[in-house]
């Protein structure tokens, strides 16, 4: 393994809702250029940790370092501008925007978003939109969503929304994708396609990934590194094979079913 270059480091992160500690002293590191997974039982605090890292929730204790900077207090939109893109466990498309428009929102630094350009130089926005739309057509084609480009995003099926989520994320050209259960509720054929896209993005665009994932086959197939959380705490880090040997992890999460496979 090359010298570790931590792109994301989380130190002693804690967060409680009311008196309930959802995340409790959570610490881990994600190496640049890897695809990593964050796994753990339901209610372990994975989504809360994602929200804390992405700036959607206020950090109560602990620190978050991203790309060499302390970003603990940054709000979500500033994290996004630094190249961290997060998705939600439940798809959060813009329902009354078309699929195409959903793809045109994410790209950063749009000059047409300035009020003066909108009012006095509409051609600036139009020209930039032309370039973005051309790129969006390619992206939609890649994800097989092109025929749905004019559909309201709110009308898509659950699986199509998952594809849209990743297509939108790609349009944002991030450096780091923090995906909360990107494969939840979709069929195996589509899962294979989605993990293909994730690998392609890592290989072609050098994007680092951290996925929250319950599907351990997927984790096994595409992840280089796995972080296990339970009861708000990081339990262990390592490869899937290492974690299978870890009795604590097996007891907390992997359970019986995987013991059989480890034997078999």
């Amino acid at each position: 393994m090359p010298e570790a270059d931590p792109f994301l480091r989380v130190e002693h992160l804690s967060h409680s809702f009311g008196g309930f500690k959802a995340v409790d002293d959570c610490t881990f590191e994600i190496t640049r250029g890897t695809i990593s997974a964050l796994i753990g039982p339901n209610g372990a605090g994975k989504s809360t940790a994602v929200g804390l890292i992405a700036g959607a929730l206020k950090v109560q204790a602990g620190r978050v370092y991203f790309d060499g900077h302390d970003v603990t207090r940054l709000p979500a939109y500033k994290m996004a501008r630094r190249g961290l893109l997060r998705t939600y466990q439940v798809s959060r498309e813009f329902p009354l925007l078309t699929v195409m428009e959903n793809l045109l929102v994410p790209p950063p630094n749009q000059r047409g978003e300035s009020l003066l350009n909108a009012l006095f130089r509409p051609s600036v926005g139009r020209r930039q939109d032309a370039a973005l739309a051309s790129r969006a057509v390619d992206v939609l084609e890649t994800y097989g969503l092109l025929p749905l480009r004019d559909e309201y995003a709110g009308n898509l099926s659950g699986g199509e929304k998952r594809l849209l989520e990743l297509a939108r994320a790609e349009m944002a050209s991030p450096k780091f994708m923090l995906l909360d259960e990107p494969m939840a509720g979709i069929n195996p054929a589509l899962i294979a396609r989605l993990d293909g896209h994730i690998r392609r993005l890592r290989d072609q665009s050098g994007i680092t990934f951290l996925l929250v994932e319950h599907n351990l086959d997927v984790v096994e197939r595409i992840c280089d590194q796995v972080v296990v959380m339970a009861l708000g705490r990081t339990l262990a880090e390592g490869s899937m094979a290492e974690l299978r040997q870890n009795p604590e992890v097996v007891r907390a999460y992997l359970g019986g079913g995987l013991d059989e496979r480890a034997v078999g």
Partner: protein
Amino acid sequence: MDLILPYLATLAIFFFVYNILTWGLNIQFGYAGVLDFTFITFVACGAYFSGVFALGPGQKSTGFEWILGLSWPFPIALVMGALAAGLLGIVIGLIAINRLRSDYMAIVTLATGTVIYGLVSNYTPLFDGFDGLAGLQTPFTQWLNINYNQFTYLWVGFCAVVMVICWFIAQRILNSPLGRTMRAIREDQEAAEAFGKDSVRVRLIAMSMGAVLAGVGGALLMGFIGAFNPAGWTSGETFVVWAALIVGGRGNNWGGVVGSFVVAVLVNEATRYIPPIPGNATLIPTVRNMLIGASLIAVLWLRPEGIIPEARRRFYQLPLLPGRRTPAEGVGSAGS
């Protein structure tokens, strides 16, 4: 003929002004999802400030007192009124718009508006309190040497020109990437933030641009009526603009035109024929508000997205780079 034409002209003026107002609220709510429940405060701000810029100095001794009193030409006073409203939009927006909680917007705008209402109507040195501004010469009449009827027709034309400018402002914002971002924030503020959109900044822009249009509308009313006081901007008037926007259809400006036609023209026209009943001085405004409420309920039941729903932006409307192939239309639905 002598009676009909000036009456139609007056209807046209109110129609044009209400168009501007519904477009303003549309920018705030229809585009950006800002629940502005004190929209009429911005209208009042435009009316008052255009008034004190255009009026002569108020004198405490005569019982009229107000700030400024600069006797500026009305078109410049109108611009000042619009700017004042835009600034107030930013101030109220800063109080009401929050990155984490968007459910407070309605109540905070309403509360802020109530405070301002109390202040303006009780603190006379500002805009003469409950008596309000009065005595503004109808603009252009002296200069052009025209009578009041002629002024009314002139004002129809002036309002039409101003309305066209406002239409371009509203449409340009809607059709720009800024408008798209506003709509994305309206749909899901948190998700838009996750894409790097500063939702507070964008909503402040929407708030203040909507307030600018409100201020323009208020200034046009001030110029037409020549007077303005707190009876003209009770919180019920905010409801009228909201009703026009919801009835007509939010998210597109033609909806605002239809809505303001229904509310400002049809309903007013219908209530005109109610005979005055002695002892029931408030009958007509009451019936008017009932009709507006009824049309709102009817639309919400039968056609919740409004008479003219927000247009779907189809792909062929988006300009592609020259030479870029356009995928064939109607490919069918996506495969798995």
